[in-house]
């Protein structure tokens, strides 16, 4: 104890200094080495299941070893110097200021030659290989269109005429710490992207609002999606399984809440799934002309609200002052004056009470969104029944008592032609 105190107080005794330095660098060394080592042993990339993923893991492993060695050499030299060249050991410093003589120049240039070789040969060549491989989206057996929205993904299979949106299915209660967390907390969705194994699949990526990034670690790909532009990438999965990823570009408040879940199945199972999915979509389409009881609508509406709308308007329907208007009655919307004016102009906002305006406007807003604001258009993502349900729910919960019951047909009627 007293020695430590002594070291920290400083003083002229160089042996204290020396040990101090040794300790410092030794520790930094251990941490620096333990890092990559631990990375390799416990916290490596998720096991890659695509050719690109394996390439990248190979590069990564190689890299960690090389930088660990470089780090060791560097820290070793520093340690040695601190130890051997302290004042205690050498009362008189040398006076050289640059390499002299052929041998020393040679010696001084080795590190740079080594770095060049490492950069361009050892690391550069495998990298070139996988960059080219990554760019090669030709000869795909299937193409899937991926569209990013604030804040969920939408998948379409043009070859099969099916498509759906894929939303975070972690209940808001778990996010608010009011329920125990699922092991796949924040990495679960209602409709995963289903892909066949062993086939080269091209992904066409687009965004409807801001830049997002499609990232599934086990596939070794990360691709930004840029609104108004198309991006391509490809995967070829060799192992059936469930692979989880996340949006990897800051896209607003819901950025942490738009996971990607891919279920890879054998081609035969994939065909089966396509059949099921077609049937499901047909059933959903049929709901547009069905009628539902108020209880059914309220239950479904609550579900839709909690999965889709609560991200912005919050579970309790109170919204967020200034950003997202409340759905609940009696809560003045603390927005900027122009925002309130815009809402008023739509006949929708009355100071202090909301969602009690005309039903038609309400439906239109949910169908087509409010252009120029984060309020998205849901026409492409939600069935008429779901929209009817969520509007019924909004108008009869949160202290709203309009008593309106909206049926899918009302929504369908407004769906095309504003």
């Amino acid at each position, binding site marked *: 104890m007293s020695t430590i105190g002594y070291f920290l107080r400083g003083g002229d005794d160089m042996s204290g200094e020396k040990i101090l330095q040794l300790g410092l660098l030794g520790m930094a060394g251990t941490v620096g080495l333990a890092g990559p080592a631990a990375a390799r042993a416990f916290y490596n990339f998720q096991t890659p299941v695509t050719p690109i993923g394996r390439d990248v893991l190979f590069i990564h492993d190689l890299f960690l070893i090389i930088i660990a060695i470089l780090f060791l050499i560097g820290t070793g030299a520093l340690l040695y110097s601190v130890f051997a*060249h302290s004042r205690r050991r050498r009362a008189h410093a040398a006076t*050289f200021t640059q390499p002299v003589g052929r041998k020393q120049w040679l010696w001084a240039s080795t590190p740079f030659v080594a770095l060049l070789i490492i950069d361009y040969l050892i690391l550069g060549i495998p990298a070139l290989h996988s960059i080219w491989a990554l760019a090669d989206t030709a000869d795909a057996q299937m193409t899937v269109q991926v569209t990013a929205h604030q804040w969920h993904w939408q998948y379409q299979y043009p070859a099969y005429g099916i498509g759906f949106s894929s939303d975070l299915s972690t209940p808001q209660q778990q996010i608010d710490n009011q329920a125990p967390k699922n092991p796949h907390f924040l990495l679960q969705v209602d409709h995963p992207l289903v892909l066949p194994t062993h086939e080269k699949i091209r992904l066409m990526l687009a965004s409807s609002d*801001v830049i997002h990034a499609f*990232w599934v670690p086990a596939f070794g790909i990360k*691709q930004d999606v840029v*609104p108004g532009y198309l991006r391509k990438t490809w995967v070829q999965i060799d192992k059936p399984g469930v692979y989880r990823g996340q949006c990897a570009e800051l896209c607003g408040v819901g950025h942490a809440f738009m996971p990607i879940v891919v279920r890879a199945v054998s081609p035969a199972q994939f065909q089966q799934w396509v059949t099921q999915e077609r049937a499901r979509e047909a059933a959903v389409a049929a709901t547009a002309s069905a009628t539902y009881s108020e209880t059914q609508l309220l239950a479904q509406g609550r579900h839709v609200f909690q999965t889709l709308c609560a991200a912005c308007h919050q579970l309790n329907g109170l919204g967020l002052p200034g950003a997202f208007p409340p759905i609940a009655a009696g809560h003045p919307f603390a927005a900027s004056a122009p925002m309130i004016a815009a809402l008023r102009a739509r006949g929708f906002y009355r100071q202090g009470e909301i969602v009690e305006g005309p039903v038609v406007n309400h439906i239109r807003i949910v169908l087509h969104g409010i252009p120029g604001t984060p309020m998205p258009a849901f026409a492409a993502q939600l069935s008429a029944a779901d929209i009817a349900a969520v509007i019924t729910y909004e108008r009869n919960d949160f202290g709203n008592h309009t008593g309106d019951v909206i049926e899918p047909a009302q929504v369908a009627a407004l769906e095309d032609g504003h």
Partner: protein
Amino acid sequence: MSAVNPAIEHLHEPHHDAPPRGITRWLYATNHKDIGVMYLVFGVLMFFVGGLLAELIRSELLTPTMRVLSPEAYNQVITIHGLVMVFAAVMPITTGFANYLIPLMIGAPDMALPRLNNWGFWLLPAAAILLVLPWGLKLLGIGTGTIDTGWTMYAPLSIQAGPGADFAFVAVLLLGLSSTMASINILVTIAQQRAPGMSWLKLPVFVWSWVVTALLLIAVFPALMAGCVMQIADRHFGTHFFSAAGGGDPVLWEHIFWFFGHPEVYILLLPTTGILPHILATFARKPMYGYKAQVYSFVAIGVMSIIVWAHHMFTSGLPAGVEIYFMLSTMAISIPVAVLFFCWFGTIWRGSMTFETPMLFALGYIVLFGIGGLTGLVLSDAAADQQYHNTYFLVAHFHYALFGGPIMGIFAGLYYYLPKMTGRMYSETLGRWHFWLTLIAFNVVFMPQFLLGIAGMPRRIPDYALQFAPLNMVSSIGAFLLGATQLLFLYNLARTVFGTAGAPASARVWEGSSGLEFTLPSPPPFHTFSTPPVIE
């Protein structure tokens, strides 16, 4: 020269006089030391503001779904943390060193353009206020708080953002003006004010590091300013620079931002790589190794840093050939940086070293920035970067580079020059505690983040999946320790500046120090080198 016109005399600041009294000494300052001190004080203060925001980030990330901050507030906090640390902490501090030291180091009576100098400084508080003002407005019920797009301000998220974004873009314009003015002044001073005999290749390395830094600032900041004007235009005047509907491209903003942003990281780094060799040479009691090699490396780093920017955009969908070019050119930068490392090693090699606090921080710099640099090398691999990009691996890289480099270098420089500036020694004991705890805590904060990134945790998320929980907790606890440690530094600083506790410092201050600044008494008089020294 003929006799001085008597009419002029009253305009002259009487030399060797005491500094002006009262607050106007600072508000109206034209003296390079006073302005330098203001830069330093402002920067250190803002480092604590940025650090406080970092503590908020780490509190939110202590466990999954902490609700210290809402997701909106979280995005605003990380954005302002990044902007404040980069623009309001590190840059002002290094500029403070430049203002204080360059005239002393080159034997000039002052900076070449003293009033411009003061103007450059006072733009900084203005910009800092604009950055955080939207939070104040929000309290009054106006707007949605400050900018929440990340410090990179990518369009079109930035177009969608609330009024806070306008404040931020305007703030960046003021910051750009400030940096441009400071850089002009520094370049002119170095070119014009050198004492007789101080040839270019006799300039201290620190001065050289600033030649390159200032040139870089002039070469890239105006581009960012132009970009900010376009952002404001897209937000409010209906233009389509960054919107596909009008033929524009969001990726264009990325190009603009990183054309500035990559050189910017060297703008942050270079001044401290300039201070480092002085400190190493002083405490190794040995002349600096490889002076010319270091100067050429600065120049090489400066030039190369302008042509590698798109390594930040490897996932944005650039054509493969473009990615390969940017990968190869980025890798090339590691060569001149490694030359600097080599010279640092050469400087202490076979020296006669002692380990006072500045030396400890300098050695810590080599190790920590070494880790930052080496992991940068990893990131420059366009294929592997697909996995690292926007994960905590990247966050760890740039904190090792930014804290391990500039911040460690700033600590080293502050401890090194504090006795010179104040005339009193700081507490060596406290300094050592500060170093040790910083070193340990820093690694505890950011080493786990490498692992988190490798395991797949994206950056800029307030909540995360459960497998990331243990390491995040370690990181957060480390951050609290790191924050507390910096209070130690603050105390040591305050006690040296305001107290009388420290022993008086000699002119040399350190046994091994050399350079013109150490020929002056500590603290140096208000006006120095009114008659220039002659360098042999």
